[in-house]
């Protein structure tokens, strides 16, 4: 299966672990990932926060490129990219004026071959032809859990993982329409397919602090602490995330968390794709474990996972 894949800039720069483990895992599920040519930054939230038509041009240009390359779905793993791409797409479908204006901007992309006078790129308006899927959704709906179960090489039974949705995958309910945001099953079912145990805990959809990490670090520290503490209290050996920012707030910030909350002993944070890749038999050296501030190596040992202690 060949599918368009949008890594987003964070995965290319700050946290390659998510990108690498995604590629390694999907290779083993016979999925070929194709990056749309000339993709740009999705706009990281800004297209959605302000009523600026120009901001929407970036995500829509990428979607149009996917369409022009003959694709009808675009898979992404970063929750922020997912939210921005999906909601930008939706914004155009819901608002004819936005649709008209964004496409008008994008017509500047049209290049005309000076000899044949034929248009080479930016052929037509983008009309919502591409469906944006989160990798979790793609695995559930297109790849299917049975195929994952078939290909499992390592037994992770007994490894209690706390799935962390964060804010971006499930909400707003009507627009994302991925799962019930109040009692979701998407991530849990994925973990079960991979062979881990999914820990049920009340903070799985609460905010990690997001960009407050920059403007009000103490607030992000507190928010992330509450998530980690709840996961730990409910027996998790690690928290699995889908978003680089969640990862940053919960992993990179854990020193600050421990400093602020002396009772907190720490908890590893991993990307869901690292667990998937590991279960599918990918070597631990390519999982990007070096990026973790909180050592997560203990989760990826060649011994029965039931004996893993972190």
């Amino acid at each position, binding site marked *: 299966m060949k599918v368009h894949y949008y890594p987003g800039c964070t995965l290319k720069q700050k946290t390659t672990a998510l990108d690498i483990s995604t590629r390694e895992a999907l290779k083993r599920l016979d999925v070929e990932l194709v990056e749309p040519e000339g993709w740009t930054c999705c706009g990281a939230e800004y297209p959605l926060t302000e009523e600026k038509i120009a901001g929407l041009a970036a995500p829509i240009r990428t979607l149009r490129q996917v369409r022009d390359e003959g694709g009808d779905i675009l898979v992404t793993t970063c929750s922020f990219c997912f939210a921005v791409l999906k909601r930008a797409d939706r914004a155009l479908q819901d608002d004819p004026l936005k649709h008209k204006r964004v496409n008008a901007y994008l017509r500047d992309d049209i290049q005309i071959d000076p000899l044949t006078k034929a248009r080479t790129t930016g052929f037509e308006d983008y009309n919502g032809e591409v469906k944006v899927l989160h990798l979790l959704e793609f695995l559930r709906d297109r790849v299917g859990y049975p195929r994952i179960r078939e290909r499992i090489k390592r037994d992770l039974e007994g490894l209690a993982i706390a799935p962390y949705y964060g804010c971006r995958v499930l909400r707003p309910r009507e627009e994302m329409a991925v799962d019930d945001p*109040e*009692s979701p099953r998407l991530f849990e079912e994925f973990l079960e397919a991979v062979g881990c145990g999914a820990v*049920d805990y*009340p903070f799985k959809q609460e905010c990690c602090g997001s960009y407050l990490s920059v403007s009000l670090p103490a607030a992000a520290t507190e928010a992330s602490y509450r998530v980690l503490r709840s996961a730990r*209290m409910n027996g998790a050996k690690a928290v699995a995330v889908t978003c680089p920012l969640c990862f940053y707030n919960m992993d990179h910030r854990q020193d600050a968390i421990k400093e602020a909350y002396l009772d907190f002993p720490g908890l590893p944070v991993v990307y869901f794709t690292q667990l998937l890749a590991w279960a599918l038999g990918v070597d631990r050296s390519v999982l990007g474990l070096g990026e973790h501030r909180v050592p997560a190596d203990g989760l990826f040992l060649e011994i029965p996972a039931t004996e893993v202690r972190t």
Partner: protein
Amino acid sequence: MTTKPKLKEKRIGLFVCHCGVNIAGVVDVGKVAEQLKDTPGVSFSTDYVYMCSDPGQQMIIDTIKEKHLDGIIVAACSPTLHEKTFQEAARLAGLNPYQIEIANIREQDSWVHTDKEKATKKAVKIVKSHVAKARQNENLDPIKVDVNRRALIIGGGVSGLQAAMDIADHGYEVILVEKNPSIGGKMIQLSETFPTLDCSQCILTPKMVEVSRHPRIKLLTYHEVDSISGFVGNFKVRIKKRPRYVDETLCNLCGECEKVCPQVVPDEFNMGLSFRKAIYLPFPQAIPGTYTLDAENCLGLNPVRCGKCKDVCDKKAIDYDMKETITEEEVGAVVVATGYDLYTMQALGEYGGEKYDDVVNGLEFERILSASGPTGGEIRRPSDGKVPRSIVFVQCSGSRDSEKHLPYCSKICCMYTAKHAMMYRHRVPDGQATVFYIDVRTGGKSFDEFYMRTVEEDKVLYIRGKVSKIFKEGDKLIVWGVDTLTGKKVEIEADMVVLAMAMVKADGVQDLLKKLKIATDIHGFLAEAHPKLRPVESLNAGFYLAGCAHGPKDIPETVAQASAAAAKVGDLFAQKELVHEPTVVPVNDELCSGCGICLTMCPYTARTLDPARGVVVVNEILCEGCGACAAACPSGAAQQRNQTDDQIFSMLRAMLRD
């Protein structure tokens, strides 16, 4: 077009109404009367300021007699308003009421136009088209049919019981069908009732006994209505008897069977908070007072597999060979009192009711409060039986949330939550009761006084705001909410949470309602014929509504509605015979090819195909004269009386000619 049969020319009278300035302000009514004067068929024409007034009607009556008119056109307002008035006037003058023709020159002309000249021209066209139709109107007689003076009540909750009692007391026979082993409905599960705090069981059980002993009420518990056919005054009802496996005439409630039964299942009466056996008495005051064997949970209705209950039964009341049976009854009216359900815990994932035992709904809390409940009336939480030191009550759980849940108000939750909090404070005096509310709605006799007592005397803390999330941490439930009066987030540790769940349509009866084709609203509650003027009648003739099947309501309102429905049934039964509009759509056997297209069009199942003759036959009592079949019929065999194709085409010609 076929050639028109030669008609004896009619003597039509035209009466144009001014309706004060409503019509005359825009339409030149005098001109309309004048211009139509010489139209073929019209032999009299005039205008008058208010045709519907007494002198107006008298003028019509006198003119009919004087000029020997045999057709009347009243050019006035919509026929929905005064057609009946003028039909009655015609009858008084000795003219067949179906010779009255209403030309609507108000709603369809003067009210929607301002240009006098054009409006007048339009009025002339409208009236002309009605002249064309009136020339072909026939004398019709209302269809008459007998009434079967027996009533069927579906549902044996308080509304069904009240309706049954009232109708039976009027002197008519009643058949009361209840699906469950006992009558009593949801009300029998309640502890105390607001605002008087009288015990629900104490006030309902006498009514249950009365119903069961009434000579004119046939009580069928553990029965279900399978289907209803026929029409108002003449329904045929198929009633399914579920096998109880215990002969209710023999069972003496000794209880030996229950003792030996090895099968333990959650007790529905206690909302699953306690257990019962597979052979059980739903509750001590159950009527009929008999054990019921629940086959679904029995080991197999087979002496080889278990048979313990049968062995110990001295009265030989237990019979494993009972079968489902169907009986037929004939009734004239049906009261639908099928009750409600509560919104499910699954639908409110954020409140965790599915995961946490100590998050309960209002009805579960009623059982915890009830002296006959699983804890004997002591307030103990379901998970570990501890007395909760703090309870949070969440009003509008699922109600008044058009974005995520249900847009409507469930009406009774404000009052029962106040009662719950008050009862809790009475029984656990050092307990903390906190209520989250959007508004407190206490419209009802002595309701607000009751609520104020809860706040002022019983010191219940009311927080205005919604709860966003409930989760467990250790032994405690953490409730996240907002206090919208201070604008602050609130976090409360509680031992127990009571959700005032929204009331929703009863799930178990939806199939039946669909089969009966009873009109419902968008939320699945039964729809009344008119929200103000016909609140207890269904749009389906012969069906009446009572209780929460029609929408959320409290006990006093339910009882009042049930009595009103009973009174309406009394109205129906007081008629010597029923009359039905004769403007139905019969079938011309000569033309009908039996294609059956009209069958699929008919929303009232009035038309059936006679397989022997290959033509469609019409039950004229069921036909409501909507005309859908007439429009669909390819051969013209279906012609609505006084609205034939010929008449419609003549109207069009009259309107389009110039």
